[in-house]
């Protein structure tokens, strides 16, 4: 798994590629914990390159959503592949974190 973080004005974009599973989750958690040390309030997960996610990955997304809510921030996701979207739908997480087809739409939504 690879994570590339970019910042555009006040929005941070986490582009996650590869597999988000029990093996790679600690890597994402560490990166997010670093990010949460600063006061940013807008975060997008760009999942165009994400091949696979399991409950271990969902757990991090849920924790992140809760933390963002606690700091009155905004979180959304962009460009989910079909099998990833499937996992979000079955788990009900799709209702907890807004998902958009394009990165632009995600950026507009949390501007």
């Amino acid at each position, binding site marked *: 798994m690879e994570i590339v973080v970019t910042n555009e004005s006040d929005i941070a974009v986490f582009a996650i590629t590869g597999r988000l599973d029990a*093996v790679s989750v600690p890597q994402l958690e560490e990166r997010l914990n670093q990010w949460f040390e600063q006061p940013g309030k807008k975060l997008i997960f760009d999942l165009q390159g994400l091949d696979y996610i*399991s409950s271990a990955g969902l*757990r991090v997304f849920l924790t992140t959503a809760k933390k963002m809510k606690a700091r009155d921030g905004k979180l959304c996701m962009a460009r989910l592949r079909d099998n990833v979207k*499937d*996992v979000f739908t079955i788990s009900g997480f799709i209702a*907890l974190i807004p998902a958009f087809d394009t990165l632009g739409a995600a950026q507009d939504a949390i501007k």
Partner: protein
Amino acid sequence: MIMKKMPARVESLHELLTFIRAEAKKRGFSESALSRIELVAEEALVNVFVHGYAKGQGQVEVRCLVADDPSLTIEIHDTGVAFDPLSLADPDVQSDLTKRKIGGMGVFFIRKMTDRVAYRREGNSNILAMTFLNR
């Protein structure tokens, strides 16, 4: 029957999933079915890694059972403490962000994405049998 045995720890995950995926592929499952099989297998294996052995020293065995039909049955065997993952309650997938709990998702996926799933205890082994029909 085809099987693979490895130490029950997260470092074994990718090799076991690659093995399972290859067996499922041989039986002609579609890409989307393969994704689901892989997910369910990870959830079952990680349960064993996390809860199976108190001291982290144990083995997990994956068996792919051959059937006459093109279905696939995967059995996960471990000799850890007796534990039926199917005894856990489903999470409430309707609840909102404030109320949503972190745990329980893995077993929920196992129930939801298999065509049949059963737990049994044989001697000192936990066995979780998961069947996927090839439609």
